C-alpha cells in the first residue's frame, strides 16, 4: 500500500496526465481506507475547478464579485 505522501503525488499527477490502471487502483484502494487522502483528492478537484472558473473570469474578489456581469 502506498503512503499518504505518495498518494498525494498521484492525486496531483492525475490532473496533468492519464494514470496507469495500476496507479488508479492504488489511489482508489488507499482512499477507501484513508479519509484524509480521500478528502485531499476531492479538494484537488475543487482547486482545479476554482482555477478554471477564475481563468474564465467567473471568479473574482472585485466589487462585482464576478457574478454580476451580464
Amino acid at each position, binding site marked *: 500500500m502506498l*503512503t*499518504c505522501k505518495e498518494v498525494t503525488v498521484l492525486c*496531483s499527477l492525475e490532473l496533468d496526465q492519464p494514470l496507469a490502471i495500476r496507479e488508479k487502483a492504488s489511489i482508489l484502494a488507499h482512499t477507501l481506507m484513508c479519509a484524509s487522502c480521500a478528502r485531499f483528492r476531492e479538494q484537488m478537484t475543487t482547486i482545479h475547478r476554482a482555477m478554471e472558473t*477564475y481563468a474564465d473570469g467567473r471568479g*473574482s474578489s472585485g466589487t*462585482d464579485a464576478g457574478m454580476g*456581469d451580464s
Partner: protein
Amino acid sequence: MRLIRSRSPSDRAEGAGPAIDARALAALRDDMVRFAVLQLRNRAAAEDVVHEAIEAAIRRADSFEGGASLKTWVFAILRNRIVDHLRQRDRTVSMSVLIEDDDNWQDGVDQLFAEHGGWRPEFRPAAWPNPEQALSSRQFWVVFETCLEHLPEATARVFMMREFLGFETEEICTTLSITPGNCHVILHRARLKLRSCLESGWGRTGELEC
C-alpha cells in the same frame, strides 16, 4: 452609452454582432490586470497584455456572442495573449535559479508528512465547506487570490501555465527548459501549498475573517 462595433475592412452592417459596451469593458480592466499580474509577476508586462487584449476585443467585437458573459469572452482573449507572451518571451529569467530559490519552501511541504509517509495530525486535510457555495462566495475568491499571490515565483509560473492557460506539461518543460520530473514536482507542491493556504484562510472555519 458608447458602443463599440468592430470596424472590419468591409465595414459590416450594423447588427452583425452584439455591440460591446465600452464602459463594461473598462470595468473589467482591474480584474484583467490582477489576473495577468498573478502569472507574469510584472505589473508593466501585465498592463501591456491587458492593453493588447482589450484592443483585440474591440477589433473582434463582432465575434462576441451576446449570450456569453462579456467577461468570459474577454478573459479567453486575455489568456491567449498571455500564452503568446509566455511563448515569445526572451528567457532572461533562468527557471533553474528560480527553482533553487523556491527550494527552501520545499521543506515546508515535507513537514506535512511524518517519516512513515502518513499525514502529521496537525496537517491532515480538514473538511471544506460545499464547493458550490465556495465558488460563488466573494470571500473565497479573496482568499484564493491571496494564496496564489503567495506562491513562490517559479512555482506560480508553472502552475498557472498548466491550470489557467491549459499548457500540457511537455510544453511547459520546453518553454521553460525544465525537466518533466521537475515540472511534476513543482505542480504538486503548488497544489499542496494552495490547499493548505485555502484551508487556513477559508476552509477550516467559515467564520474566520482573513
